[in-house]
């Protein structure tokens, strides 16, 4: 989780990632930032995030991103 929040803060600082639950729905993160986050997550965790995962629910909070990363780590073992 810490790593994810570090990535998020690096890409877009000054957001309360621990509590924010609508990062995409409330347009706190735009498409360019989501793509940048995916690039960093893929590299940091060695996972492949495909276009099928591109639903707001997967990126609306740091927690949702953690769930996504964990699931993909499991699936792509």
């Amino acid at each position, binding site marked *: 989780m810490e790593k994810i929040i570090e990535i998020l803060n690096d*890409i877009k600082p000054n957001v309360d990632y621990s509590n924010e639950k609508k990062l995409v729905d409330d*347009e706190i993160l*735009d*498409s*360019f930032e989501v*793509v*940048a986050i*995916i*690039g*960093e997550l*893929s*590299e940091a965790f060695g996972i*492949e*995030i*495909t*276009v*099928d995962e*591109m639903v707001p629910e997967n990126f609306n909070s740091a927690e949702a991103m953690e769930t996504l990363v964990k699931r993909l780590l499991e699936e792509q073992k």
Partner: protein
Amino acid sequence: MSFVSGQFLLFVAVVVVLFYLVPQKYKWVLLLVASYSFYLFGGVKPVIFILLSTFSTFGAGLMMGRYEKKQKKEKRRILILLLLLNFGILLLLKYYNFFAENIDPLFRTFEYDISMPLVNIMLPLGISFYTFQAMGYAIDIYRGKYEPETNLAHFALFVSFFPQIMQGPISRYNQLAPQFFAEHRFEYKKVKFGIQLMLWGFFKKMVIADRMAILVDTVFPYYYGYDGDQVFVAMFCYAIQIYADFSGGIDITRGLAGAMGIELVQNFQRPYFAITVPEYWRRWHMSLTNWMRDYVFFPLTLSKMSNKLGRWSRKKFKGVVGRQIPSYLPTFIVFFLIGVWHGASWGYIAFGFYNGTVIVLGMMLKPLFETVNKKLGIKEGNTLFKIWQIIRTFLIMMVGKTLVRAVSVKDGILMTLIAFDPARWDIPHLPWNMVGMGLGKNQMLVLMISCIIFFFVSFLQENGLQMRETISGQRTRVRWTIYLLGIAAVLIFGIYGPGYTAGEFIYRNF
């Protein structure tokens, strides 16, 4: 059948009344019959194309549905064939002549004469809208987002739903289709809100956009004979005209569907209040930009090649630029497609390239802008700074739209140079000179008052006010004064063409 004609209003009135009279289980059948009747008003031949798209997409959906979510290879073959067929038809009908006109001179420079004949093709009504809507459905099925529709007639209604066939919005299957089959009981509030939204749409279209059109059509072809400030005013008016025209049409569409209890997706969110160009595109023609984001931008930026590029760029360029590089090319591709989606012309290609360049440059220079703002002591959220950002974004988009509307791209550039050349401005005489721009003094006054109302309403909405809810909360006398003023404004100040039909919608041609 135009949206702004007596014929259309009569058709709508009959459909809405029947919609609430027929039993629940036949409501969708009525909508299907109404949709195809509406479509047939435009001729029999275009129906062949919409049927072809409907049958092919429905069939492909069923075929893809037979495979498991992970059997991508098999599904991909079907999807590619379907996309080739449907986008092939669109390309052929919409872009063939442009291609032929431009390829001939190219070959002639190499002393080949291929003489591609130009063909007189009548573009089927709403082809760009229904093709994108149907292909969105097919890609969702390919991705396993939901199960394919198994009833051909149900699917045909999704593709042809008449309120949105002419100019969108481009709906998603899982958002729109379930509403056709949900229970719809008559609710006074829904019908009232629907009619109010339609009235607001007619006001924007007939009182503002069609009046602006007179001024724009007068100045744009002969801009060289006008002062810089007059050209600026014409460019400004065109930006307002196209917004009032398109968003007015969408209000009529959404109001009509809303009167039947069907909520269509938002297509505009007051785009001229955006503070950056990317934000403008999140507020303008949202159903198209969201389509491009989901079905073009994300697949391109998340492709294997893009991943490789991203790994390389993050190593090579530290910080923001390194992370952004994989988005640059997809951004250009998306805006090129958005440009040519509107039509086949160099103006639209230039418009796409212009937007792509502005957005990519904005992304690259963002750190620099932030440093400058910091040094100047400008804080984020500062009201004056925000107003400047809104004006700046509006001016950038105004220039972009001029490139498309001008006689040629070159004329668009020249117009921009004249409009932004202070030496060619003659402000003291502008009030008198404006009367010579196609509209008389009284017409100009009507236009200005209408625009102030338009701006005021938009400003209130931007600050969270729900207009229709607020009006509903007023006393009967106040409410009916507003309604009657609205109807009177459209009837008295609306611009009517021959036979009392208003001007055609700009987006109907796309």
